[in-house]
């Protein structure tokens, strides 16, 4: 097995990984490993995108602002939005670090389109380009490899000392010895049959941390973004309609958002609470048998007068959004047709448990960005771009410093080979049930039963089915036997990661017998602050998931009472400073 030695190993080359690399390179050599296209991977390029910081910090950076805001006021809002499940040490790190990160991006050439009270508006592509400039300024202290998929972390004496990876170009295994390791692998979008994430988001980091013994936290918390295009195929998963003014109709033609509790209707239509409220409303129509043919809702713009429609068109030259050309579809909408949209898995509040230095519960292992859990509690409204930047900087610094003062003994060859065996066995075994069949079963099950609306019975069914799928995946053998560029083999390896992460998520969702934030249980539709203002922690013990509870690290007091879900949302919104 080829061996590569480095100071800091960073797994994932999206925004969190690049930011971590820049910071770690001040202290150590860095190797940035990327499964997808280098420096363009992950959800970063797809971000909307706003980068948030409190108003006072933005004003210090020279952006127009009345300056009345503060990191503390912002932190209070984040905790209210998170239904008081946030780890407030992490919230403090986030709000305190945000201003410096906006400043750093601007120095690397971020193009700012507009400034709003708590954010600069830009694009994911511009954020990514700025970070690539930051990485290139570090010169040879950062080396990068792409199309390399990390399989598992290597531990010695309870410490993470590197990883075993698969070079997908050659099909060869690779041992990476590292004095510190940072996971920056993003979410597990692809475990859902309908999602708004990139192809490589398969929960690899969460799963490898979990298998190595690290704690996962808040895994039941998954954000679905509403109004995501179900069709045509070339636009499936795009967030384009999320930013357009449309009217949602069920299959009977009812404008079902008008049925919302009037106290939450305004939030649903005018604020980012729409992610939660509109997703829930759409999913309820589908489960009541009133969904559109593709299992979503109709999105119509027919209520707009033509001159209003054309004014919107003028703001979006050529109907282009990100890299896509929507002119054909928009022509149909102008003619009065409706598109089909639905809620798609978009962001994961839960993930690897970290402390305020982004250290996981394993020595030598750090994590940054969407693969972590705890910062946003039960519901993220504040920017995930800022999360990846602040975490990236903190994790990169901590890992760099740790690597500079640490010696790691060489990894015995047999230890490394043992970690690669599982992947090689998939290639060596005779063809089994097709990988794609199991993958589709998992994705449909996750979307249906661990999705927008949850219920005790369906979650119990999901837990049972997931155990069966895990058994079946344990004896997977692929039909394609070449080592090089073997997509079937990669997917089989990713399947194990997605299964373990969805299993953790389903178990936590079943355990949490209340509704809180994005976790909505139809069988218990109230926020239960008496029993459930606590984290659910999932750990891998004797090859099985084990659940435990952890107190919320908080300075804010919450009355220990049970509040109907809608009332809790109204209260949270009323408590916001902005």
């Amino acid at each position: 097995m080829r061996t590569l030695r480095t100071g800091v190993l960073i797994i994932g080359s999206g925004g969190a990984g690049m930011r971590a690399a820049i910071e770690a390179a001040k202290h150590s050599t860095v190797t940035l490993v990327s499964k997808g296209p280098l420096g363009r991977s992950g959800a970063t390029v797809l971000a909307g995108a706003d980068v948030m910081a409190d108003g006072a910090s933005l004003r210090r950076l020279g952006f127009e602002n009345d300056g009345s805001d503060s990191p503390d006021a912002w932190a209070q809002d984040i905790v209210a939005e998170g239904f008081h499940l946030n780890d407030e040490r992490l919230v403090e790190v986030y709000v305190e670090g945000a201003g410096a990160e906006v400043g750093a991006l601007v120095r690397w050439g971020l193009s700012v389109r507009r400034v709003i009270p708590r954010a600069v508006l830009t694009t994911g592509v511009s954020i990514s380009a700025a970070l690539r400039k930051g990485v290139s300024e570090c010169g040879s202290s950062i080396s990068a490899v792409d199309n390399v998929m990390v399989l598992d972390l290597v531990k010695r004496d309870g410490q993470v000392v590197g990883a075993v990876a698969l070079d997908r170009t050659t099909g060869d295994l690779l041992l990476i010895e590292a004095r510190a390791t940072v996971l920056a692998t993003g979410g597990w979008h692809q475990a859902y049959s309908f999602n708004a994430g990139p192809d490589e988001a398969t929960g690899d980091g969460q799963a490898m941390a979990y298998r190595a013994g690290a704690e996962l936290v808040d895994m039941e918390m998954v954000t679905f973004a509403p109004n995501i295009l179900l069709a045509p195929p070339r636009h499936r998963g795009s967030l384009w309609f999320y930013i357009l003014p449309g009217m949602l109709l069920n299959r009977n033609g009812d404008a079902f958002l008008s049925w919302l509790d009037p106290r939450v209707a305004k939030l649903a239509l005018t604020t980012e609470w729409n992610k939660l409220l509109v997703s829930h409303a759409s999913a309820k129509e589908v489960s009541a048998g009133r969904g559109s043919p593709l299992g979503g809702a109709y999105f119509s713009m027919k209520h707009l007068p033509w001159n209003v429609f054309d004014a919107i068109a003028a703001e979006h030259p050529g109907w282009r959004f990100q890299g896509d050309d929507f002119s054909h579809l928009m022509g149909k909408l102008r003619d009065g047709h409706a598109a089909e949209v639905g809620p798609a898995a978009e962001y994961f509040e839960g993930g690897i448990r970290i402390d305020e230095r982004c250290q996981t519960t394993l020595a030598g292992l750090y994590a940054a960005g969407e693969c972590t859990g705890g910062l946003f509690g039960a519901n993220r409204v504040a920017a995930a771009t800022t999360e990846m930047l602040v975490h990236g900087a903190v994790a990169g610094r901590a890992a760099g410093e740790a690597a500079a003062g640490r010696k790691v003994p060489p990894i015995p060859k047999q230890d490394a080979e043992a970690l690669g065996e599982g992947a090689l066995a998939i290639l060596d075994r005779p063809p089994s049930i097709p990988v794609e069949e199991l993958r589709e079963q998992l994705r449909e099950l996750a979307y249906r039963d661990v999705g927008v609306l949850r219920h005790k019975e369906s979650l119990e069914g999901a837990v049972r089915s997931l155990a069966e799928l895990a058994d079946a995946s344990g004896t997977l053998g692929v039909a394609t036997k070449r080592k090089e560029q073997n997509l079937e083999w990669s997917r089989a390896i990713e399947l194990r990661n997605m299964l373990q992460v969805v299993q953790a998520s389903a178990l936590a969702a079943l355990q949490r017998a209340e509704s809180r934030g994005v976790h909505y249980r139809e069988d218990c539709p109230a926020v239960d602050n008496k029993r459930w203002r606590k984290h659910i922690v999932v750990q891998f013990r004797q090859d099985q998931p084990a659940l435990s509870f952890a107190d919320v690290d908080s300075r804010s007091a919450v009355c220990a009472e049970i509040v109907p879900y809608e009332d809790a949302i109204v209260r949270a919104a009323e408590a916001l400073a902005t």
Partner: protein
Amino acid sequence: MAEERQVTLSVRSWSKSGRGPVQEYTIPVLDETDVLSALEHIHAHLDPGVAYRSSCRRGVCGGCRMLIDGELRLACETEVRDGMEIDPYGSE
């Protein structure tokens, strides 16, 4: 809104030399189906040996750049047509 039709695509398979054999696949597609979605369908339902690289599927990351009818194009941004020749690793 969506009309289903059949298209036949020629896909060059991966090989060390870069010139693997070409295989034809006939698949059902809807209006506005992109080449990447078509390859996905072939991989999932007809031939798991068909491989390609992809990431964002929205014309942003550039990960699915490949040879389509002899030209380097993004598979996610190219509408599929009957008779297309696709070489997923043809850009390397």
